[in-house]
């Protein structure tokens, strides 16, 4: 420990030349919620993410896992050695070759090195030549160049480390070890790099103690030598990085050493690349991005910088990740790390066969790649081939019996595919193999929380955070857990409702009711009953919901389903009218069924489509409906075929694509049910459960290939939307529609099929008081696009117009159509209820208020009105529900308890009535109405 302290003190003596580690550890302390919310707003980790089960797949907390780093270390040192030589004297043509290499003109560089090799066959020239070959994936040629040099200089050990690194890239580990040993014992100029590489090999073969001793020695090297070269400082930095697992302070020292290396050799890309990787590992994507972009600014063809940036993009949830990875592979088709990363992204898209193919290609280059093996294993597992999985697992453990990162990666991928129990099992194995795998503890904790195991989850998160105080996910989640004592758990028959204390009394009533109804309906639909209790967590702060889901704020979703645990925004988490909490809950609960019935193997698109379909089935207006965005996408042929529909959720390429994909997926389910019956959907789910891929599932359940189904689906879309889509008269993409009143009016006059022109002309005519013109155009707009129920819908405008004119019945008709299409418009529901009351249609009035409460249940007056309407309709047991809600909202508790008691009494439940009445009279013993009711109850008891 002494020498570590020396290194740290050296950093201080150097006078903070640069902040040693710009990525500060995050501090854990109990903080006021407002402060947390402020922090959430200020964070830069905003993620755009779709809702529901696999949203977290795009935000794998540690996309550049340690094993990725380890795999790239040896070759990085090779390049460092080359870079160092750039600074020494050289011939003009050698300098040209080296410049070409630095700038990514690899063919020019290789040709120039080859030309120059005749005149100056030095280690420096050969290292540059070999590096150019390595970066372009020509490993065998690179080894041949090493041999060619040795033919000229048989006694030299100067290229042994380089040879070892190329052999390592090919997975020839024993040979690589021999080469590193030869370099180290022979006193090669880069023998310290070789020594580091030997420690890395020890680490990767499971001899962690030996590896740590090796890394530890580099601190002595640093402290005892003030004149280290850049490559040696980089070796020190990498050693500190490994040692950081035992002492997080050493990550700062790693950065400091990297900075020193960069200062000594500004031409070298390697310290910058490693700094980028370290920042990314420590969850600092902006600084990581900056590092990789710095390298790409000089060499846009650098495959390692491209891959690094791809990983940053993946971390940020950006679809550019895939393109960047493919660019890296164009430059180096044998780039194992990039191939493995591509395979991993394929897995995230549930393209298991493609992922398997990519992983196998990577393993053809390096059969023991610690990056590719877990991806192949995951692909086998997700394809349902347990034997193949076990074989890959055996291969990985044979290589490194303590390879915690193999299981860490499997856990990540399991989470991406919503296999939370598997993830817990993999993380548990990881911590068994390496009790300092902090990311494993973190993943274990987070996934235990997702499965409802709060105590164990918290304990593992605490342990993870202790070892890795940079992990903002764990920190945020732990902060959120600190607020859990403010929550109240309410149990219903099948649910455990976990709701913040101030809202619990009110929301538990409604969430419990909706959840129980949904369970019954879905159980009948799917012929499956998920294990209970199902835990529903309701968060009054969207930031808290987001942290519960992803560990970070910024999630765009309203709810998420982990299977046995559902987390949702409380209706108070967003402005009134922004979402319908009940349909959201129904949607998420449908996931619990489709995930459960398939052992979590249902593809994302199918699960989402069914959830939307189930929403629509539950209540008029619920679930996505056709909108302008969908019709525009349809008309512009931007809808995806079934085989690619997952991309619409997980790798959207244009705004609104996620929402459009939800609707499209629901239409697919709807078509299947229409043409084949719901049993076909059950059969499809069974097919997924049995491990079949989508093409097989369609073939077995529907007797159709995917292409054939796509054709049928196209016909279905045409049948439903061709007419209405044509009325949109969409301008060419990227061109704004006309907005001038005259333009619109003349369009409406000359084109009776122009929906937008009629709608806008009607609205503007109404604003000008010309109701006749307004009505004519608005009615036409309705005819053209009857499903249009967004803000400004003709139904809304006409309803207002009719109401202003005293035509309540017509206003009610318009609003009824509107709310049957739009589930979120609170005011429209309330207004419609008032109209029905005016029209003496009590039951309809009550129904509208009940539906309004599914949007926003916090307005006391609505509950009061609803209770009265229900009473008038004789729905006494529903009056009880409203009275219970009012109890939570009013400050006049005695009155509310009395009203509740009366409701129970009228519903025939005198036992509950007596209980609530005593509570009322306990507060207000002189309450005359209450006392009278007490006598009534007593008399009724006597009569009974």
């Amino acid at each position, binding site marked *: 420990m002494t020498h570590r302290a020396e290194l740290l003190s050296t950093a201080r003596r150097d006078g903070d030349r640069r902040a040693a580690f710009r990525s500060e550890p995050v501090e854990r302390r109990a903080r006021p919620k407002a402060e947390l919310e402020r922090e959430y707003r200020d964070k830069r980790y905003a993620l755009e993410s779709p809702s529901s089960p696999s949203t977290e797949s795009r935000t794998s907390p540690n996309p550049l896992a340690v094993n990725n780093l380890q795999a790239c270390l040896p070759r990085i040192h090779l390049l460092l050695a080359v870079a160092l030589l750039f600074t020494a004297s050289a011939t003009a043509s050698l300098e040209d070759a080296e410049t070409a290499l630095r700038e990514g003109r690899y063919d020019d560089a290789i040709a120039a090195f080859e030309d120059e090799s005749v005149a100056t066959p030095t280690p420096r020239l050969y290292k540059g030549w070999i590096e150019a070959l390595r970066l372009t994936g020509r490993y065998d040629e690179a080894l041949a160049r090493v041999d060619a040099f040795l033919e000229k200089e048989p006694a030299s050990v100067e290229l042994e480390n380089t040879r070892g690194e190329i052999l390592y890239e090919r997975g020839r580990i024993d040979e690589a070890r021999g080469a590193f040993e030869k370099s180290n014992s022979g006193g090669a100029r880069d023998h310290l790099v070789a020594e580091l590489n030997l420690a890395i090999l020890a680490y990767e073969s499971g001899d962690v103690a030996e590896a740590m001793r090796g890394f530890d020695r580099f601190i002595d090297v640093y402290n005892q030598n003030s004149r280290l070269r850049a490559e040696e400082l980089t070796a020190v930095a990498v050693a500190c990085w490994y040692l950081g697992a035992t002492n997080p302070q050493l990550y700062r020292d790693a950065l400091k050493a990297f900075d020193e290396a960069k200062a000594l050799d500004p031409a070298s890309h390697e310290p910058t690349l490693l700094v980028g990787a370290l920042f990314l590992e420590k969850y600092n994507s902006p600084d990581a991005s900056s590092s990789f972009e710095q390298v790409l600014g000089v060499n846009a063809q650098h495959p390692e910088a491209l891959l690094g940036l791809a990983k940053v993009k993946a971390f940020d949830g950006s679809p550019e990740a895939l393109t960047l990875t493919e660019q890296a592979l164009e430059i180096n088709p044998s780039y194992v790390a990039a191939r493995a990363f591509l395979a991993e992204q394929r897995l995230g898209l549930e393209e298991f066969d493609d992922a398997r193919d990519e992983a196998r290609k990577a393993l053809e280059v390096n059969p023991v790649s610690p990056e590719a093996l877990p991806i192949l294993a995951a692909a086998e597992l997700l394809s349902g081939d347990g034997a193949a999985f076990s074989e890959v697992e055996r291969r990985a453990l044979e290589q490194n019996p303590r390879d915690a990162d193999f299981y860490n990666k499997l856990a990540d991928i399991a989470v991406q595919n919503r296999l939370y129990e598997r993830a817990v099992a993999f993380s548990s194995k990881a911590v068994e193999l390496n009790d300092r795998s902090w990311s494993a503890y973190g993943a274990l904790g987070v996934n235990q929380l997702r499965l409802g195991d709060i105590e164990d989850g918290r304990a593992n998160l605490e342990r993870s955070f202790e070892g890795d105080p940079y992990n903002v996910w764990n920190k945020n989640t732990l902060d959120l857990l600190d607020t859990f004592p403010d929550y109240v758990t309410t149990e219903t028959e099948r649910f455990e409702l976990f709701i913040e204390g101030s809202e619990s009394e009110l929301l538990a009533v409604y969430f419990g009711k909706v959840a129980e109804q949904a369970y019954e309906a879905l159980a009948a639909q799917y012929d499956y009953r998920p294990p209970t209790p199902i835990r529903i967590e309701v968060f009054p702060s969207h930031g808290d919901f987001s942290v519960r889901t992803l560990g970070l704020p910024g999630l765009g979703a309203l709810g998420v389903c982990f299977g046995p645990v559902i987390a949702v925004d409380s209706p108070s988490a967003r402005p009134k009218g922004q979402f319908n909490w009940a349909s959201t809950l129904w949607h998420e609960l449908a996931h619990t069924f489709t995930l459960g019935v398939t052992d979590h193997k249902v593809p994302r698109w199918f699960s989402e489509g069914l959830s939307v379909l189930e929403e629509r089935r539950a209540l008029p207006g619920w679930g996505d409906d056709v909108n302008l965005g969908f019709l525009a996408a349809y008309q512009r042929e931007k809808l995806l075929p079934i085989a690619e529909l997952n991309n619409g959720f997980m790798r959207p390429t244009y705004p609104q694509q996620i929402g459009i994909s939800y609707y499209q997926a629901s239409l697919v389910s709807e078509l299947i049910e229409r043409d084949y019956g719901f049993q076909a959907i059950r059969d499809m789910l069974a097919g997924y459960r049995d491990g079949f891929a989508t093409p097989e599932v369609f073939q077995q359940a529907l007797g159709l290939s995917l292409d054939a189904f796509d054709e049928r689906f196209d016909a279905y879309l045409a049948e439903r939307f061709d007419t209405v889509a044509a009325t949109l008269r969409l301008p060419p993409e990227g061109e704004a529609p006309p907005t001038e009143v005259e333009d619109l009016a003349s369009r409406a006059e000359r084109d009776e099929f122009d929906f937008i022109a009629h709608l806008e002309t009607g609205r503007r005519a109404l604003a000008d008081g010309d109701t006749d013109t307004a009505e004519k155009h608005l009615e036409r707009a309705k005819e053209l696009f009857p499903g249009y129920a967004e803000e400004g819908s003709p139904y809304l405008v006409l309803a207002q117009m009719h109401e202003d004119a005293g035509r309540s019945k017509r206003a009610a008709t318009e609003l009824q159509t509107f709310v049957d299409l739009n589930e979120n418009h609170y005011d429209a529901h309330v207004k419609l209820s008032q109209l029905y009351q005016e029209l003496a249609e009590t039951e309809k009035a009550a129904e509208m208020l009940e539906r309004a409460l599914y949007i926003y249940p916090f307005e006391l007056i609505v509950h009061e009105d609803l209770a009265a309407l229900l009473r008038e309709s004789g729905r006494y047991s529903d009056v009880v529900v409203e009275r219970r809600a009012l109890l939570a909202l009013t*400050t*006049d*508790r*005695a*009155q509310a308890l*009395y009203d509740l008691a009366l409701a129970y009494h009228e519903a025939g439940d005198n036992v509950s009535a*007596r*209980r609530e009445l*005593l509570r009322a*009279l*306990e*507060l*207000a*013993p*002189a*309450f*005359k*109405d*209450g*006392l*009278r009711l*007490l*006598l009534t109850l*007593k008399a009724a008891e006597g009569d009974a």
Partner: protein
Amino acid sequence: MSVFDPRRSLGVAVGRPRRWIAVAVAVLVCVSAASVSAKQTHLVIIVGLGGEDSYREKFHRWASDMRDAAIQRYGVSEDRVYYLSENPEAYPGTVHSKSTKESVQALFTELEGAVAPGDQLFVLLIGHGSFRSEESRFNLPGPDLTAVEFDLMLQPFSGQQIVFVNASSASGNFLPVLAGSNRIVVTATKSGYERNESLFGQYFVEAYAGDAADTDKNERVSVLEAFTHARVRVDGYYAEENILKTEHAILDDNGDGEGMHELGQSEGDVAGTVYLHGDAAVAEGFSAAEVEADPELARLVEKKLELEGRVEALRLQKDSMPEDLYLTELETVLLELAQVTQDIEQRRQSE
């Protein structure tokens, strides 16, 4: 006989002294209903400088509502309601005099002879306040009155129950100056630094003018109920408007000068038992004279108050009793109370 005799339990509950204040008051009320009915409430409403017409109108409306509620709802005699206004000419017949410093001081001097020991003196200030040089003032036409000056005016009333409510802005520093024995002091703000327009007065008056504040359903509004109602309504207003709350009303009823916004164990027990008129019989729909003239009615009223006291005492035992037993006991008392209440109702209907 019940194991939990509330009267016996009163004497042993030494662990909760503050709560016993309320019980003691309740018991006092129940055993001396007839004598309580003889006590009178004297209500003084002082509306200060409005500054603008909109404020003048608003302040007058609040004052009028309070005056009407006191007289019409709670039976306070009109000649014991004193309304001082910036502009008495505008409201002939209702305003006692102009609300200058001199008039106010003269009124309190006059009241020294009119307010008997045991009576209640209820003072409500409506208007603007200020806080300068560490001194809170209530703004009047002409010279203002300070908290210290009000305290001097109240000194002669040491034998009376005083309720002093300053509903003006920046009124918070009145509380520590005026707090004392037999005094309930309420201010619209927690300090002199909360200088923005205060809404507290509007909702405090609303509590007396309507039924919403009567949360214990005894058809009377205690000072505590009025305070709580106003506080909750003020909170609701700021929350609904999504603006930062600039007023935090406080109440002191134990004389320690430490007013509390969210009432807890140290405040509120006395305020919960003090009503605008202080005459229980009136609340049952009978005048004090009618009760005195009808021994059976007097017995019922007294019985009712006694039973209410037993409920309160029983409630204090709740935590130490098995729930079933508690509920059984409670129901027994409440059934008796219900019967007595019904008898009183029948008696009134037969009048």
